């Protein structure tokens, strides 16, 4: 008889469901690598060519390093941020739009499993893109990572934070325009003004103070510290800010999932 099936226990079900969502998300961005992995590789190569090789030598050293060495960590971090965010927001909104998110919502999969599964996809794509861009940068300059543990942990935490941002955006998004507003009007300006291409030491007083309110500045500088051993801000402050934002975002995401905002009628 079909209906006498033995159901797996809670922990087992949750683990298998997590693995399923994480693999589904990973498989998605690998399947469409022409849209997900190739474009950042091309864009960042252009950054290295133009800002590193062509303009860089005219700018001269920045914070005691060759200009291309200075921008490499920022450019890598920029690709991590953008890709982690875009992966989750587009995948989650796509699932909402096509309504196949209902497959998961009607199943016994707990909310935190749904969240972690989607984050796995975002973090995975963010880090993989970062790795690709790092490999490309090696063709333009010699990289010696000063603090590998800090470099990896900051990249991971930043990818996690922006995956969470993408998830929250995906929950609230009602149409495709809504998933491009935040990246275009908030994420990109904050990233460019977050010290990717310059040191905030170059900025006049009030602009420097204003820059300190930009959370991306802390991530870029912490990552740069891992690479070069140089940072405009204390590394502990950067970690604290990233972790606080992650905690807030996790709580907000779980709250929104529990309330069914944008998902349940």
């Amino acid at each position: 008889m079909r209906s006498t099936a033995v159901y797996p226990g809670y922990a087992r079900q949750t683990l298998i469901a997590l693995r399923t969502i994480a693999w589904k998300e990973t498989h998605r961005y690998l399947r469409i690598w022409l849209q997900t992995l190739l474009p950042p590789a091309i864009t960042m190569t252009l950054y290295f060519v133009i800002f590193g090789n062509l303009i860089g030598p005219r700018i001269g050293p920045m914070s005691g390093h060759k200009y291309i060495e200075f921008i490499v960590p920022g450019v890598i971090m920029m690709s991590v941020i953008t890709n982690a965010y875009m992966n989750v927001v587009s995948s989650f909104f796509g699932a909402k739009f096509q309504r196949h998110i209902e497959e998961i919502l009607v199943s016994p999969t707990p909310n935190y499993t749904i969240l972690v599964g989607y984050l796995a996809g975002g973090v995975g794509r963010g880090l993989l893109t970062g790795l690709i861009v790092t490999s490309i940068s090696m063709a333009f300059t010699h990289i010696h990572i000063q603090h590998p543990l800090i470099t990896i942990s900051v990249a991971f935490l930043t990818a996690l934070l922006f995956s969470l941002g993408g998830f929250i955006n995906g929950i609230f998004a009602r149409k495709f325009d809504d998933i491009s507003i935040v990246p275009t009007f908030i994420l990109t300006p904050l990233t460019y003004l977050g010290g990717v291409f310059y040191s905030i030491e170059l900025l006049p007083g009030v602009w420097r103070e204003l820059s300190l309110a930009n959370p991306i500045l802390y991530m870029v500088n912490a990552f740069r510290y891992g690479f070069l051993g140089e940072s405009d801000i204390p590394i502990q402050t950067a970690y604290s800010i990233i972790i606080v934002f992650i905690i807030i975002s996790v709580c907000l995401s779980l709250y929104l999932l529990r309330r069914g905002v944008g998902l349940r009628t």
Partner: protein
Amino acid sequence: MKALSLSKLNKLYASGVHALRDVDLVVNEGEFFGLLGPNGAGKSTIIGIISSLVRKTRGHVEVFGYSIDREPWQAKSLLGLVPQEFNFNSFETVSQIILNQAGFYGITRRAAHQRAEQYLTELGLWSRRNSVSRTLSGGMKRRLMIARALVHHPRLLILDEPTAGVDIEVRRSMWDFLRRINTEGTTIILSTHYLEEAESLCRNIAIIDQGQIIENTDVRSLLRKLTAQSFLLDIDGRLTDAPELRDFHVVPVDESCLEVEVRSDQSLNELFARLAERNVQVVSMKNKSNRLEELFIRMLERPSATHRKPAQVEKTA
């Protein structure tokens, strides 16, 4: 055992629409239960609440004794849903959709492969297992949704218009399949607009209208409430006027077809006798509509938009 229990279920949408008003409903284990009603009656809202896609305003829902509020994990594990609209990833293959669904319910990959093969074969989709789902025909998509809903072996399967837009051959094969899984122990709740389907499959039926259950009984009892049936008679020759038949209400459909209403206290023999008296030869005869459909229409007849007339239907005991 109760497979499903709804108690004082209410749903008030933000738009102000009161979709459900104190709905009480029990579906026993093993039943093939029909949930009928006109568009906007509240059927999909009930199904949405049971499957947790719609948040209820008030009331209780239990699936095999598990509350969807207090024990959602257990309740959801026992439930399978075939929604009205296609809601699978149109970029995934048939196999991926089934395997992912199995994963959401904690079924191991190996077991999922076995079940996918079983259900896709039973539903005639095995040869299309590697096809991207958006390339399937409408009927195949419907069957894919049934296979997906069954992959975790739910004890309660809810089908929301599963045969909409499906040709009659596929529909009948789906009926056979659903009958079989019901016989094998799966409780089924079917919401459909095809009343022939409900009459053929369901043992018990609830009719919902304007957010309230207006009838909940077995099909036989329900059909006994039908106090009149309309028949279409094809006659030999041409009629200029409808024949006057004592005690029967006759309406000409065209020059060679009559519509006759036969009350439950009348017999077809009487009708044919009257027709013979008028030298009217009947070539063929059929019900104007399915019996349940006729009853359904009569129950929901409204003289105005706001007042329902319980026309020719006995009061529910």
